[in-house]
């Protein structure tokens, strides 16, 4: 027990130490506290409101009343489904934001010879004493008062179920992290895993949107929801949220069985995490090495300094999960928009503009993604113009090929290729998307020399370097807003066409205008970025060195 308490004390000692060291961390923590308080108050307010609901609601006399509070009623189904998604999201968020970069990573205790079970238990308990766990616990306890109309027993059981739910969330999250760090040893495996988790997360966030907008609210099937809730209530994800309803409707046997499911989950997670600890200790350094034949892009890129920069960048983009993620997004956008299109093909086409806008978001902080490797270029005395040209070559080529392939795909998938008017309209959106990508890229060549912010290490894409949240929250906006502003010339021409009423006949004019606008901004950004890089190369290297120290 001493070791466990020591780990809990260590967790808070580290938190206080970080707060003392950095004003930004203190500000961040205060904001986190306000959010936590807001969450608890929000849960309490929601509970108060739900507690006022009547057992049945009949919106119109000619339809059957809706069961709100009864067994498999709306409240029951909603709570279990929301709780299930919440538990899943907690796991994914933990994996994305904290992951193996967390201060309390088991690896850091390897030297002390603490038995695996004690260490794992200590880490679990210390996790449960953290601000997120306490917030979750208090919010769920506040939520218990939503059940006051279905019985006092339900309230009492909900109060008991709150810690059970939090322990389950924490156990599952820890198992997910342990498995991801232990079993995925190769760099490529980690990269693929990272992309899958992020896509899953975004998809999970989009589920409600797609359900509502996808095929109309009439397609919502209550029976399917009830069935889903019933199934979820028997999984570790939703079991804790069903407990108050079990006791309210007199299903004590089911209550005990579900508690059994939860306990089994904790044990399984604990055993799994302990196994991972042991496995990792016994197999440290046994990662597979992958061989690559030839010199890849170095063999066919232009035979020049900027060609070397291009080849290096392209090779890295293929091996860097943090940046490769960005290239999954355009396809993802198109799929999401097509699910919400209601048969209107222009909704899908507009995905190209979003894709163009996001394509260079990583490049807007590109030097930070390259990290200390940039020093190699500085040592070799590479001119800023050569570097910028090399980078732009790769990104511009990706933007052109990617958006064109997507445009052709959309044209065929929607059938717009058969209608010349719609095809021209699509072509205009493609041109605007490409122009937006070029404007963003041009701006990126400037922002990546001036507004750098720390990023996770390539080895640990899930980790969160200290001081990241504050700066990262602000700097990407410079890119996102700035790249839109750079498209202003096209916007002005479009506005003029609209004001003169010529837009319906002459909208195709926007195609050359947008492309010229994009190319112009790209050239300007590349030139200015080169000048900035020449002037700031040494301070950039210095900044990247300081970022590297945050990643360890």
């Amino acid at each position, binding site marked *: 027990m001493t070791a466990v308490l020591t780990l809990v004390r260590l967790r808070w000692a580290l938190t206080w130490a970080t707060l003392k060291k950095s004003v930004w961390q203190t500000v961040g923590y205060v904001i986190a506290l306000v959010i936590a308080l807001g969450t608890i108050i929000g849960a309490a307010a929601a509970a108060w409101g739900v507690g006022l609901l009547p057992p049945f609601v009949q919106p119109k006399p000619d339809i059957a009343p809706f069961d709100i509070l009864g067994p498999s009623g709306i409240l029951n189904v909603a709570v279990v489904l929301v709780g299930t998604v919440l538990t899943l999201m907690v796991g994914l968020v933990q994996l994305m934001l904290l992951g193996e970069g967390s201060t309390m990573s088991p690896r850091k205790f390897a030297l002390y010879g603490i038995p695996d079970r004690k260490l794992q238990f200590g880490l679990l308990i210390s996790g449960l004493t953290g601000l997120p766990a306490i917030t979750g616990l208090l919010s769920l306890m506040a939520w218990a008062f939503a059940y006051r109309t279905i019985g006092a027993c339900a309230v009492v059981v909900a109060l008991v179920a709150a810690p059970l739910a939090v322990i389950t969330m924490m156990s599952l999250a820890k198992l997910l992290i342990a498995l991801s760090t232990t079993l995925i040893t190769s760099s490529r495996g980690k990269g693929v895993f990272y992309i899958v988790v992020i896509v899953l997360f975004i998809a999970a966030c989009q589920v409600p949107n797609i359900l509502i907008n996808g095929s109309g609210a009439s397609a919502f099937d209550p029976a399917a929801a009830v069935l889903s809730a019933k199934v979820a209530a028997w999984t570790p994800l939703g079991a804790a949220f069903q407990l108050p309803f079990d006791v309210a409707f007199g299903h004590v046997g089911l209550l005990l069985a579900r508690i059994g499911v939860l306990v089994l989950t904790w044990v399984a997670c604990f055993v799994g995490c302990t196994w991972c600890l042991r496995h990792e200790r016994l197999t440290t350094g046994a990662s597979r090495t992958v061989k690559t034949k030839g010199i890849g892009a170095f063999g066919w890129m232009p035979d*020049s300094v900027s060609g070397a920069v291009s080849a290096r960048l392209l090779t890295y983009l293929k091996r860097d999960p943090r940046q490769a993620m960005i290239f999954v997004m355009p396809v993802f956008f198109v799929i999401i928009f097509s699910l919400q299109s209601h048969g209107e093909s222009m909704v899908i086409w507009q995905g190209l503009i979003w894709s163009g806008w996001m394509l260079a978001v990583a490049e807007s902080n590109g030097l930070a993604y390259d990290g200390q490797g940039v020093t190699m270029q500085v040592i070799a005395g590479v001119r800023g113009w050569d570097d910028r040209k090399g980078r732009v070559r790769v990104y511009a080529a990706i933007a052109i090929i990617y958006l064109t392939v997507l445009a052709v795909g959309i044209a065929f998938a929607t059938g717009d290729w058969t209608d010349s008017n719609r095809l021209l309209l699509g072509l205009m959106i493609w041109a605007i998307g490409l122009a937006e990508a070029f404007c963003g890229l041009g701006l990126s060549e400037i922002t990546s020399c001036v507004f750098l912010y720390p990023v996770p290490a390539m080895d640990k894409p899930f980790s969160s370097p200290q001081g990241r949240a504050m700066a990262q929250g602000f700097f990407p906006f410079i890119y996102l807003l700035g790249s839109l502003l750079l498209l202003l010339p096209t916007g002005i021409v479009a506005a003029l066409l609209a004001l003169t009423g010529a837009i319906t006949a002459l909208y195709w004019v926007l195609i050359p205008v947008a492309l010229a606008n994009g190319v112009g901004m790209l050239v300007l950004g590349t030139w200015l970025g080169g000048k900035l890089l020449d002037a700031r190369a040494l301070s950039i290297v210095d900044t990247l060195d300081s970022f590297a120290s945050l990643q360890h």
Partner: protein
Amino acid sequence: MPQAQNVPLPDRFDQSQLNQPQPEQPPQLPPQQSAAQPWPLNPAAAVSIRGLFKRFGQKIAVNGLALDIPVGSFYGLVGPNGAGKTTTLNMVTGLLVPDAGNAMILGHDVWQDVNTVKRMIGVMPQPEQIFDRLTGMQLLVYSGMLRGMKRDESLARAKDLLSAFDLAQAADVMVSDYSAGMTKKICLASAMIHSPRILVLDEPFESVDPVSSANLKDILIEYAHTGGTVIISSHVMSLVEKMCTHVAVINNGMVSAAGTVEQVAAGEDLEERFLQLVGGRHAAVRISWLDGGTAHTPDPSTPYAANEPYAANEPNAANESSRQ
């Protein structure tokens, strides 16, 4: 701001001495410690430094350092940790802007056209300063092309270097999968691919195995014999004594002694001489509880964590600890 430009040269610090080993003479004194005549930069030297000064906050890292490194020499910069060796090398190679002072490489002012100077020299990057997701072969080709070499020539030289450094088998393996020694070797190879006239190496043999180290030394000695200048910083005095023709002892950001190895050693063992020059060595300290025994060892069944001193299990242990 210190008056560090063109530090006056002491009468006895004759530039010609640097190129002519004179074992019988005592080591040269640091020029900035004696104010007499101004001492101009020497364009004939491989590297000429005058009054180099750098401050980080309150800490003066390099304090008016002056030095000439002859062409074709194998020059060792030695000094204790924090003496200013790496800072000096960074300023000389254009990787750090000095607060004051001048540096010249083969007659070119470093800070007037820094990129030209950088292409003339070969600086060995530290392992964390390379793109380690490239394969060894890709890294070398990249390094060559960055210096303006053609692809085919870079590729041919990369193959030669990989063979010379015993890395041919690992040519297609990502550098991140290399061992520490292999990584050092590929870093050195990347600094040599453009056949620079001056090689600057910061702790080149650290974590390199003896066999690879011997091969590396042979390559570097051969390179120096062909007229190249090698500048290394190192803590390993025996290595400097064995390989270097010249040495400068740096302490507190200044040159304590410089000249040929024989001049600096002044008839003594170089390591002993180094310790005399930098000082700081004291009598052995005995810590009462560090007895190699079991008297104060904590019970292994009661593990403790980093923030819990094991004195908690041994209430009197802290009191017993004392310097004797």
